[in-house]
């Protein structure tokens, strides 16, 4: 009970002050039949710091950490090196334990950081305005669809078949309840994405087209032609990016005509964390769409002495003011993850991000070339950044499990992502980052060769 500072003497004095003889006098409004007397059955009593740490460490050791294996998993979560100073800064109590900056006079640290973060994201995405972050990429994707229906006053969304299937599932789940129509394209395995088939689905009822860039198979779709087709029908293009490092090497979605750009920022600064917390990024190309955006926004202003300062702004869109008429029910952001992203991005800068992206791409090219030489392996992609798909003439799910038993984390089998698509069962998504060594690539190639022989 080391976190509870009251002593028994304090408690008696305080009970006297409030005019209660026992603590239960303060719980009189709780119906007696529902009140719990004594400890709850089946739960342990308090434990020391040492005991808790030991328990958690034992659980931790039952997991194979990415750093302890040749590691090739991606599919929406990427392992990158995070400089030590990033974690140092986010552990500063003034950031870690601060509240939402609703009192701007004593929250300028968080607010200035958010303003810088918004600007970094807007530039990275080629957009005018970014918000102060969302829960994660998948929920940001749904919020983009919801925003597009507000902007266009149409209620149909056309999803690319190469959108991350979990993102597709989130959008379809939410749409079931809001009454929006979702037209999703069937996923297909081809060296290039099927833009023609996607464009054919856009019609006069379409609020938005949602395209992942690079897509779930690692391919790079031509957003320009999709944007033109969408705009010709009065629809918006929502571009989804799950690997922000890619944007250090390829053109930004905004530059290619996307109207709303959303994505997952985890790859920069945040770490894998078994899937969360992650960092949803959300930006719009046209500043006039700002008032339809979900989530928090930080803006510049001045204080009573004329000094520049920052505040949360445009909150009339939000639930604490608009209640049932709010643009979204979201009342949080991923503040600390946004800080990690911003610090890492500041350490990288333009030069560092470009070098990081180039190194990712260089190693991915080496991996693709090496794996292509493994008998029974075909590299699918024509174009890719740091992730590509291979076909391995075997059940990739089984191969992934077998290789894991040998201490090699080989990638994400498409069979796990698409259990219902039989033709994907022999395919494997392989991601390579700067943390992958050429030795790791060789280990994977040899292990695959053995598994397929």
């Amino acid at each position, binding site marked *: *009970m080391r976190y509870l500072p009251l002593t028994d003497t*304090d408690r008696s004095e305080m009970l006297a002050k409030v005019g209660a003889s026992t603590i239960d006098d*303060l*719980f009189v409004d709780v119906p007696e039949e*529902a009140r719990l007397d004594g400890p709850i059955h*089946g739960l342990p009593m308090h434990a020391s710091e040492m005991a808790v*740490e030991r328990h*958690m460490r034992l659980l*931790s*050791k*039952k997991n*194979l*950490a990415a750093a302890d294996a040749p*590691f090739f998993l991606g599919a929406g979560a990427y392992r990158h090196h995070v400089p030590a100073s990033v974690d140092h800064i986010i552990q500063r*109590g003034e*950031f*870690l*334990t601060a*509240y939402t900056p609703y009192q*701007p*006079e004593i929250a300028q*640290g968080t607010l*200035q950081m958010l303003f810088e973060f918004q600007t970094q994201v*807007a530039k990275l995405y080629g957009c005018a305005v970014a918000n102060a*972050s969302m*829960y*994660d*990429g998948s929920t940001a994707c749904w919020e983009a669809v919801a925003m597009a229906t507000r902007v266009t006053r149409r209620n149909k969304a056309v999803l690319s078949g190469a959108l991350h299937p979990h993102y597709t599932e*989130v959008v379809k789940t*939410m749409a*079931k309840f809001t009454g929006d129509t979702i037209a999703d394209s069937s996923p297909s395995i081809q060296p290039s994405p099927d833009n023609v088939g996607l464009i054919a689905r856009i019609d006069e009822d379409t609020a938005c087209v949602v395209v992942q860039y690079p897509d779930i198979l690692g391919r*790079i779709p031509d957003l320009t032609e999709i944007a033109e087709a969408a705009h010709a029908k009065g629809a918006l293009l929502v571009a989804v990016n799950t690997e922000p490092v890619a944007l*250090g*090497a*390829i*053109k930004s979605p905004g530059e290619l005509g996307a109207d709303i750009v959303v994505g997952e920022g985890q790859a920069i600064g945040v*770490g894998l964390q*078994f899937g969360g917390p992650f960092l949803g990024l959300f930006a719009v190309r046209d500043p006039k769409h700002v008032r339809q955006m979900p989530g928090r926004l930080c803006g510049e202003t*001045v204080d009573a*002495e004329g*000094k520049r300062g920052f*505040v949360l*702004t445009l909150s009339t869109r939000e*639930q604490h003011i608009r*209640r049932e008429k709010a643009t979204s*029910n979201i*009342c*949080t*952001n991923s*503040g600390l993850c946004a800080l990690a992203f911003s610090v890492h991005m*500041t*350490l*990288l*800068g333009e030069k560092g991000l470009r070098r990081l992206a180039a190194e990712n791409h260089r190693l*991915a*090219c080496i991996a693709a070339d090496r794996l292509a030489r493994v008998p029974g392996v075909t590299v699918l992609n*024509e*174009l890719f950044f740091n992730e590509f798909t291979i076909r391995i003439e075997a059940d990739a799910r089984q191969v992934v499990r077998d290789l894991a038993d040998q201490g090699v984390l080989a990638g994400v089998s498409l069979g796990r992502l698409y*259990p*219902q698509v039989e033709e994907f069962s022999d395919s494997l998504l392989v991601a390579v980052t700067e943390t992958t060594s050429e030795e790791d690539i060789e280990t994977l190639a040899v292990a695959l060769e053995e598994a397929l022989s």
Partner: protein
Amino acid sequence: MNAPNKSGWKPEMNASEDGMHNGPATVTGNRALMLEEPLIFEIGHAETTGVDLPEISEGRSRLGSFARNETIGLPGLTEPETVRHYTRLSRQNYAIDLGLFPLGSCTMKHNPRLNEKVARMPGFADVHPLQPQGTVRGALEVINELAEWLLKLTGMHGVAMSPKAGAHGELCGILCIRAALEARGDAREVVLVPESAHGTNPATAAFANYRVENIPANEDGRVDLEALKARLGPDVAAVMITNPNTCGLFERDMKAISDAVHEAGGFVYCDGANFNAIVGKVRPGDLGVDAMHINLHKTFSTPHGGGGPGSGPVVLSEALSPFGPLPFTARTADGVVHLAEEENAAEFGHTQAFGRMTAFHGQMGMFTRALSYILSHGADGLKQVAEDAVLNANYILRSLEDLLDAPFAASGPCMHEALFGDQGFAEGLSTLDLAKALIDEGYHPMTMYFPLVVHGAMLVEPTETESKASLDQFIAALRGVAERALAGDESMKQAPYYAPRRRLDETQAARKPVLAWHEPAPPAGTPTLSEQGGS
């Protein structure tokens, strides 16, 4: 650098009218240890980087025509510059590590560093959500162990762990209700929300395509049971209740409310944001609740991080459990914890899941922290948490009710938060002025103007991690500013005087939004960011 700094501070404007800052203006804009800090865009360079990475070599590219040729416009800082920039920014923040946060409705309590240490163990921090299950058994056990605690503490039947924040959890609960109603072919359209509910509740119901109707509070600060009963009918899908409610009171009639709602064929959603007031003392399941989210940062002390991330697991009654979203964890008879996803949910009998709310498994980093906190307290400690939180809040209520209007003080003890109003303040002085004056006393202000049922509301929640000495000092400070507000001290209108910034112009920010940094038009001949050389 030609200007002292680029933070917008102008020495010539420092002729203070308030008489509080009569010292000479400084050349730098800094005041002793309080340093002004420019934006990274004003001090960074395109050619500066704080990370050693190999130079870009000419090689084979598989990027085709998509290779980026335009600059992005991202400034870089070296590592020492970066550490200094963010450390300076951090010092402009108030935080729980610096002092009491008397926030009602948004619990801010001590954040143990053990939890940070645990969350960073490589087996939790450095594992991928799609690793083969055999390589993440420990991570799945953490999720399941936390889930089991939540079920036992709430007396509920199932739990959805994936929602990423409290409001996301609310949405999850309401969607479970919608799915359960649809499964029985019952298309209901209305969700009833009491006035004192959190603003997210009506937003959530509306987002799930329900029509929202308000239910008034009675004079006692609780849900008007008769008004609620009168409105129930075959069109009401659910009632969303916050208990303890946002007036800081326990809903005495909770069981009667649940019974009435169930009788009318609806479900009861309980906003569990205030669960810390009753953890170990009452189980919501025993009160007839069907779904309740738990804000892990509030009850189980994961750090707020300047606005997030949060985590909002949702406990569900037996009627709603089959509809909870994927993925979820399940322990089989052999003691092994499995992850159920789209491909294997049927093996675990979970065929009615309403879908998926997020890409992966929820906020693992919050789960490890919350579980560490729970294990540290144990069942005995968690009960003490609720008792101390409630005792501390009542101590504040009774220490201030002679001075500040306390509208529900006569309705009995408060739970974990004490509610005051602005009645008696001198003409022209508001709750906002009192809050800003409290900043000068070294405190973060309490929650203001919420709940809406009390004029000029001030909602104070001390939490269980404050000592009596810390409460006494806070009470003295609050009495001081309250006396000034009652007496009509006009100087409060200009507060705060000593914060890193004086009162900020929020109207200008909203009227002319500046939401990103834009390079100022340079004087002729000045190199732009992209043309600047290394530093």
